[in-house]
Structures are given as structure tokens and as C-alpha cells.
């Protein structure tokens, strides 16, 4: 029974349904795998007792014929989702041992559908980062290593714990969040599937806020079908989030095998950036060939404001973050560091509680919102954002979805880019546009590079058209035949 954690989520649902194993056995197999993977630092907390109790309850429900869409499926939860009675840190020290008395809507939806919580997953502090080196609890390690090397690689970020845990088979799927690429880039770095749905598809209620107009939850899994199953449970309108969309949630899994005949796939010329590795160029061309073979027409499109997306993002996201993170004042929750008076208490609490990158972004955000600079920076960035959204609208007049690489490189070494913020920010060059425009995007593992590291392709769809992303993603997955797994060294 030690290999139950190697199943896909869909395969585990079948095995549970045919009583090949119980939810408790499936959960125990994962707890064993987690206990054996401390070196990856993917889990910040393993909720062993809760997991086994939830698994037993699931087995009891199944025996009564009460079977939910995720009945008995063990999942990892990014530590940005508040979980009732279970410590939630957002990867920061400032929250101390914060233990919410409420449950995020997305995780509540998973438990409603019968899923089992294995624990809370490591992440960049407040979801700010592209390498998971910004966690206050130490970096997550990518289970993948370059051929013949023992050097540790980053799993990407900010959902690095989610991606690493899924790739290393420490859960059947994980929740994650994506503000500028934090689901798709780590998926690309770890050979997993990551979906950022349309803005508003998943409720943000109970998810620690970073940049509210950009944040969106989504799944990381090992197959496209698994992502479709998990996203369906995560999605849905929630009156507690005023930006949550009142839209029906389709059967995403049914879309994964849909025919692509006659579909037009756009290839944005501005995504051919200087210095992109030849292997990524080739993968992109292969992706086009695979889709042509499925009956798609590949069309050239232009997204002229692409190069301004990251600079605009690095005004808008820090501005929203500086406002959202004002709540960490050491009075109502988290850790307080006493000073001589109230102001000094605030300053010491925040100066010592936040990590370096979070402080940097709060400073940028405060600056661009301050008197005299608001129009020049913040309002201008919001206007550029409108231009970027307009670019997509025009492109979608001539195509049904876009095909791009997910990230401009494979996973890099821990420490390699840590001291150059702008270089680090460039990781999100292909993913951030979908956040600014609110569009759904999926990353599919498609090949290994010459060093033996995974590379992903991204499909971006129209708003609320995740189904096309799943259809194209499913076809790419079948054509790529990617079934490589990291060699276990941990």
C-alpha cells in the first residue's frame, strides 16, 4: 500500500469507489511520504490527527452512500488559506501562531466535497516572491535536480510548497494562489499542472490578502484532469466576497477531452523576448505543431503593451499590498513588539515582523500612493493596465485562446537570483498579463530541458472560458506525453 500516493487524483477517486483501498489507507500513505520528505520543507505543518479523523469520517460517509466530488482525497493547503483551528502563517513571522476561528470559502468547499486536509504548505511570505526563498520558515526545495547534480533548486513561487508537494507526491493536489504567476510559474518549475482561473471564479474570502484586484486561488495537480476536478470544487459564487462572480461552474473535467477542430490559437509575437533559451523557443514551436495536428489554426497576434505589464504590476501590486498589510499592527492578532509609545510599537512590530521583500514592497507601495506621486505612478499604472486588458480583447477577436511559454527559464539554483529584485520579478513576464486582465491561464508540463528539468507551456483563455484552457491543455498534455518524475533523493 506504500504506493497509493503515486496515484492521480482521478485514479484515487476510482480506487476509492471500487473499494480497492480506504480513505484512511490513502491518507496514511501520504502522511508517510510527508514524514519522509522533511528535506523539501514543503509542509509548514502536518495535521496528522485531523487528516486521519477526516479520512475516517469520509470512509463512514462512503459506507452510507454519501459520496462527494472529492470524497476521501488528501490535499495540501497553501498556508495563505485560513483554516479553522489550524495555524495559518502566510509564510510570515508577524502572524505568530495565529489560529483562525473561521475557514476560507475555498477550503470549506473542499471539505464540503469530502476532501481530507494533510497540512499547510510553505510559501513566500504573503505570497510575495517567485522562488519561495522569501518564506520566514526557510526556502522550499524543488524535488527536481539537474542531471548528475546535487545542487538544490527553487520550486518557483509563491506557491512553491504546493508545487513541490504535488511533484514529490506528498498530496494528490494542492490549493495555491496566483497574483502575478504564483501558481503557473511554480507548476512550470516542478513539472506539474497549475491553473489560475478567471478573476472572481474562486472566492477570496478567508485567503490572506496580498493584492486584492489580482489575487486568485487555483489548483496545482499532476494532470490536467485532476486540476479540472479540483477547480470545480474550489469555484463558485460567495456572497462574502463582493468580487466573486455569479457564474455557473461548468464540469471542467468534461472539457479536457473536447475536440479542438477548427479552433484558432493565437501566438503573441511580443512574448519572443531577448535571451529566451532556445529550448523554450523549440518547446513553444512544438506546442504549435501539436495543436495543428489536433486541427487548430495557429494565428499571429499582437499584445503591444506586454513589456509594460511587469512595471505596471510592480506599482499596482505593492500599492494594494501596502494598504492590505496595514492591518498587521500587532493589536488584534499576531505578534506585538513593544515600543515607548503607540507609533514606536507599530514600527517595531512591523519592522521586525515582516521579512525583507515584504518590507520592500510596502515601501514601494507607500511611495507610489503618497501625496505628489499618486497620479504619476499609481493612476498611470492603472491606465496602462487598461491598455493591457484592451490588447487581450483585440487579440481574442481573432483567436479562441493564446499559447505561450509559462516562464522564461527552468528552475534555478537556490540563492542564484536572491539579491536582484528586478531579475527575480522578470520570472513572471509571461504570466503577469493574465492577472492584470483577469483572464484564466493554465500551465502544462511539456518537456524536460537538456539538464533534465521540466518546462511548461501556458494557455490563456477568455474570461470565464476555463473550459477552452482545459481542452487545449488536455490536448497538449496528451501530445507531449510528459510522464517524467523527479528521482527520489530526499
Amino acid at each position, binding site marked *: 500500500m506504500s504506493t497509493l500516493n503515486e496515484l492521480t487524483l482521478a485514479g484515487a477517486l476510482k480506487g476509492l469507489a471500487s473499494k480497492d483501498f480506504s480513505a484512511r489507507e490513502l491518507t496514511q500513505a501520504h502522511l508517510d511520504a510527508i514524514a519522509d520528505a522533511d528535506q523539501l520543507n514543503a509542509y509548514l505543518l502536518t495535521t496528522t490527527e485531523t487528516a486521519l479523523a477526516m479520512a475516517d469520517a469520509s470512509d463512514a460517509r462512503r459506507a452510507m452512500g454519501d459520496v462527494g466530488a472529492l470524497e476521501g482525497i488528501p490535499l495540501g493547503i497553501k498556508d495563505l488559506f485560513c483554516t479553522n483551528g489550524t495555524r495559518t502563517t502566510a509564510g510570515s513571522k508577524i502572524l*505568530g501562531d495565529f*489560529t*483562525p*476561528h*473561521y475557514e476560507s470559502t475555498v477550503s470549506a468547499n473542499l471539505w464540503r466535497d469530502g476532501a481530507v486536509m494533510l497540512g499547510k504548505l510553505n510559501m513566500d511570505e504573503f505570497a510575495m516572491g517567485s522562488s519561495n526563498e522569501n518564506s520566514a520558515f526557510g526556502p522550499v526545495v524543488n524535488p527536481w535536480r539537474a542531471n548528475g547534480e546535487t545542487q538544490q533548486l527553487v520550486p518557483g513561487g509563491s506557491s512553491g510548497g504546493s508545487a513541490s508537494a504535488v511533484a514529490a507526491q506528498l498530496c494528490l493536489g494542492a490549493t495555491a494562489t496566483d497574483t502575478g504567476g504564483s501558481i503557473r510559474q511554480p507548476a512550470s518549475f516542478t513539472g506539474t499542472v497549475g491553473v489560475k482561473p478567471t*478573476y*472572481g471564479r474562486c472566492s477570496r474570502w478567508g485567503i490572506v490578502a496580498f493584492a486584492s*484586484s489580482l489575487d486568485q486561488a487555483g489548483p496545482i495537480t499532476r494532470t490536467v484532469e485532476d486540476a479540472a476536478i479540483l477547480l470545480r470544487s474550489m469555484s463558485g459564487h460567495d*456572497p462574502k466576497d*463582493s*468580487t466573486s462572480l455569479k457564474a455557473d461552474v461548468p464540469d471542467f473535467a468534461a472539457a479536457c477531452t473536447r475536440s479542438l477542430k477548427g479552433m484558432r490559437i493565437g501566438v503573441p509575437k511580443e512574448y519572443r523576448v531577448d535571451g529566451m533559451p532556445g529550448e523554450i523557443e523549440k518547446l513553444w514551436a512544438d506546442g504549435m505543431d501539436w495543436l495543428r495536428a489536433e486541427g487548430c489554426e495557429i494565428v499571429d497576434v499582437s499584445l503591444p503593451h506586454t513589456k*509594460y505589464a511587469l*512595471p*505596471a504590476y*510592480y*506599482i499596482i501590486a505593492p500599492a494594494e499590498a501596502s494598504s492590505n498589510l*496595514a492591518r498587521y*499592527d500587532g*493589536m*488584534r*492578532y*499576531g505578534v*506585538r513588539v513593544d*515600543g515607548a*509609545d*503607540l*507609533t*514606536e*510599537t*507599530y*514600527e*517595531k512590530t*512591523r*519592522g*521586525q515582523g515582516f521579512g525583507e521583500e515584504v*518590507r*520592500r514592497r*510596502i*515601501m*514601494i507601495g*507607500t*511611495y507610489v500612493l*503618497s501625496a505628489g*506621486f499618486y497620479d*504619476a505612478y499609481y*493612476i*498611470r*499604472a*492603472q*491606465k*496602462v*493596465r*487598461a*491598455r493591457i*486588458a484592451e490588447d487581450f480583447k483585440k487579440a481574442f477577436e481573432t483567436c479562441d485562446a493564446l499559447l505561450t511559454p509559462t516562464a522564461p527559464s527552468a528552475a534555478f539554483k537556490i540563492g542564484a537570483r536572491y539579491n536582484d*529584485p*528586478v531579475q527575480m520579478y522578470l520570472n513572471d513576464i509571461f504570466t503577469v498579463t493574465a492577472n*492584470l*486582465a*483577469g483572464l484564466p491561464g493554465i500551465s502544462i508540463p511539456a518537456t524536460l530541458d537538456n539538464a533534465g528539468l521540466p518546462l511548461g507551456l501556458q494557455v490563456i483563455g477568455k474570461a470565464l472560458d476555463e473550459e477552452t484552457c482545459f481542452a487545449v491543455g488536455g490536448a497538449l498534455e496528451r501530445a507531449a506525453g510528459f510522464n517524467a518524475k523527479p528521482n527520489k533523493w530526499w
Partner: protein
Amino acid sequence: MSVDAKTVSKIARLARLEVAEERLAPLADELNGILHWIEELNEVDVEGVAPMASVEDVPTPTREDKVTDGNIRDDVLASAPRTEEGFFVMPKAVE
């Protein structure tokens, strides 16, 4: 535009972040690196473009004006670093 150590000190005060004196100048350099990069946005023609605060083209929803939550004082206080008799305890705010 660029910031100097004095401006960094002012921003830090606005953000209520303690920054050690010797960190002000290096922090100014870091922020200038980012601000310089952000200045590319000045190349974009944004004449007549409305600023976009949300991607959603729907009005903010409203609900009936009635109490739907509350009476959870102990839950709310449970996470506080210091409480006393059902209240948050904080340093004196008004002299």
C-alpha cells in the same frame, strides 16, 4: 524620479516600518533600482484612458441591510496579543 535616504525615512514613517539608520542609504539604492525600471511606463500613451481598478465590469453588489454575523466577541479576541475583560489592550493612543 529617485529617492534619497531622507525620503526613505519619510516613507518608512508613513508605512510604520522601523528601518535602522544604516539601512536607509542601501534601501534607497534598492528602491531606485525598482523605480527606475518602473519609469518605462512613461513611454505609454495613456491619453484619454480611464484608470482600471478592477477587471470586473459589474457594479458592486449590495445586500439587504440586516445583521448577518456577530456575537463572537471571544472568537475575535482569541488571536489578540493582549486582552483584558473582553477588550483589546493597546498602548495609549491619545495624550
